[in-house]
């Protein structure tokens, strides 16, 4: 499909375009999200881009009250925690993501196993637009 290098930079560019992309090994079908330039299962470097459907379930999460300066700058703090997590995609791969549209002050309401849908959080960064991968409850 696309002839971009199988790199983190390309992965981030795709996120800016609201696409969650991974690399698939043409030799053994192994899937990597974010992409890898080398298949670490069979060591083929014949990869292709594949787009994820953006559906999955919550594998793990945390409600962060004490975040790094970049998150504090976005208004998150002890009274307003944000949620980060790991989502298990329908395609089988797992991704790290922000978990949005959930109540970080009420962690008991967030459940491992919850169905999730992809969402893209666009921000204006120092070096231009930047998109953070996120998921919300389906």
């Amino acid at each position, binding site marked *: 499909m696309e002839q971009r290098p199988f790199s*983190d930079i390309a992965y981030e560019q795709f996120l800016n375009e609201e696409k969650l992309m991974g690399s698939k090994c043409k030799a053994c079908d192994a899937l*990597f*999200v*974010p992409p890898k330039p080398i298949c670490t299962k069979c060591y083929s470097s014949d990869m292709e881009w594949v787009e994820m459907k953006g559906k999955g379930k919550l*594998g*793990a*999460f*945390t*409600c*962060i*009250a*004490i*975040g*790094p*300066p*970049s*998150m*504090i700058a976005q208004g998150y703090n*002890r009274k307003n*925690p*944000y949620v*980060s*997590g*790991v989502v298990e995609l329908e395609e089988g*791969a*797992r*991704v*790290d*993501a*922000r978990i949005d549209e959930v109540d*970080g002050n009420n*962690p008991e309401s967030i459940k*491992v*196993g919850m169905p999730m849908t992809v969402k893209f959080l666009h921000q204006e960064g120092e070096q231009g637009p930047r998109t*953070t*991968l*996120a998921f919300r409850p389906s």
Partner: protein
Amino acid sequence: MAKRRKLGRGVAIVGAGMSKFGMFPDKDTKDVFAEAFNEMLASVDKGVDPKEIEALYLGNFSNDFFVHQSHWGPIISDLIGHTPKPATRTEGACASSALALREGVFAIASGFYDMVLVGGLEEMSKRTTEEVAEGLALATVPYEGRVGFTFPGVFGAVATAYFAKYGANREHLMNVTIKSHNNAPLNPKAQFKLSIRDLMNAKAKSLEKKGIPVPEWQDEKDFLRDLKANPVVAWPMHLYDCCPISDGASCMLLVGEDIAKNFTDEPIYVAGIGQGSGRGLHSCDDMTYFEATRYAAEEAYGMSGLKPEDIQFSEVHDCFSIAELIHIEDLGFFKPGEGYKAVEEGQTRLDGPMPINTSGGLKCKGHPVGATGVSQLYEVWTQLKGKAGERQVPKKDLRIGAAHNLGGTGGTCTFTILERR
């Protein structure tokens, strides 16, 4: 599967020292290393001439970030009068000094050196909590930091996966905290020397003094459930699930097994040593164990010919309470999913069948990250020498102890087994 490997030449530890751990506004890295070094020299039963040390291996994660100074090998070499002999820094996040020890072991096992000093250091307290969090997060996997994960956040997420898989909950994490805090008052070098009950009583007293109504905490767990006393850091990790910010240093003197008796009648031998590397949460096979720990353990057990049931006590890397539960399973002390039950039953207490973190662990002893790995082995060495005082493991014929060190979010793990023969 780790290949079964052997050292070409046996290695013994004939001296060990560590500074007090804590936040020291009036001391710098060199001051605390000197403290550890002096204790190490005094600990060598038959004495040692420090000029005989042939090489220095020094673990440091990021004094570059914490105090804006890197390249600590020669600085410490100069401090202890070791120049112009070689000094090498190792970095493996919170496992930095366990890597220094491993390199020192290999240097002697190869026959190249007869005596090396290994150690570690970190000076973290000169930065704010937020800055330290940012500095430590440099050792997460890039994709984790990118979506806001902090260190406590990654371990918080691991805890939710563990809870979902095995049916554990926050109360089980509290058992770990309470156990470690019970050991800490017995360790004069620990940063926090109060049990949770003593902390609770002290807090009540201070509230009373200020004329603030004191909550009616029934017991330690009740205190830990109180979000005012034990606020959320990264749910389910609360304040008392997390190790503190610390300054400190540690070191050990390694020699070839064949010359060990020149320094002491009772050397402590390196029986097994293992190291593994691991992937981030999103790409590991299962979020409820650390592949690097399992690999390191397999290597160390294979080298020593020992099994988990032969280990009589162990230090494990409890940067967060959940980590201790997972490590005691990964190291084979308990079956996967049963670590939390073992802790609840008291099996890991100082007087239990498998004492874990007799030092108080990172949680109470403190965690100056680059110093931690060797400081854990200092505890094992001290126990095996029978010099642990009030916290001495009450077992007859204490011969085999171990230490597990983890760096990053499981990216670098080591497991080292020491033996008194």
